[in-house]
């Protein structure tokens, strides 16, 4: 495994948590400013991908093992659909967030949107990281000198 430049490694080490933090901000602040599950998922995935690029796939998979990511993909869709099912259980139509707190529909809407966006974010993170792991896990065909 090729060792990348020292500055690159240090900067990435500092930057990766900041990127994840920003991703979480985008995720949960999506109601008030631009952002939401899709963007947050991609940003959080980008943090893991940049870590994987600089430190190698093995290190990245120690932080976030492959099997966890596979579960994440399915978990996000389940959270999303589960929110819908819950509102059905509460006697409302599928994905009608008023059912989350019937006494105060606006609050229900807020919670529902937050939950659903969280589901989207989890799925997108999982899918992107999985795709990166799949691509990076293959033995490369052309050597580093050829670039």
């Amino acid at each position: 495994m090729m060792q990348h430049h020292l500055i690159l490694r240090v900067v990435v080490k500092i930057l990766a948590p900041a990127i994840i933090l920003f991703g979480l901000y985008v995720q949960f602040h999506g109601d008030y400013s631009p952002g939401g599950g899709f963007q947050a998922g991609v940003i959080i995935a980008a943090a893991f991908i940049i870590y994987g690029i600089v430190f190698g796939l093995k290190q990245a998979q120690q932080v976030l093992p492959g099997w966890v990511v596979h579960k994440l993909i399915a978990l996000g869709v389940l959270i999303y659909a589960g929110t819908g099912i819950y509102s059905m259980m509460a006697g409302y139509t599928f994905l009608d967030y008023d059912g989350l707190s019937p006494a105060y529909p606006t609050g229900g809407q807020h919670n529902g949107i937050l939950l659903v966006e969280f589901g989207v974010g989890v799925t997108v993170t999982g899918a992107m990281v999985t795709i990166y792991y799949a691509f990076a896990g293959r033995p490369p065909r052309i050597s580093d000198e050829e670039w």
Partner: protein
Amino acid sequence: MSWEFIVGHLPYWLFITLMMTGLYIVVAKGNYVKKIVGLNIFQTSVFMLYISIGKITGGTAPIFPLDLEVDPETVYSNPLPHVLILTAIVVGIATTALGLALIVRIREEYGSIEEDVILDIEYRLTQHENAVHGDAMGGRA
């Protein structure tokens, strides 16, 4: 055709030019990675066309002030295209990744990602099969 009409439609025409550049890459180039890039350009220009439909001159981004006291004078652009395209972008990258994965598999099977080479290999494979099993299939394989 008035001047106003031309200026009002110029953005659409620019997006269509971009779209056609993407289409040209997809149709004319033999390299599969290049085709995917062309598809991405096509896709992005479709997004632009869509978003430009929702734009209102003098409008602003569809985000209310935090206290939700909306000034009736403010013009907001149409948020509906934004929603549709937002999801389309992420779905687009997912399908792109699927295409790239297919390319990697093709490369492993055929040793090439050029359409010409692969067609040639396929042609020779068929000829070979025909020569070996041709009789059993009535001379047509």
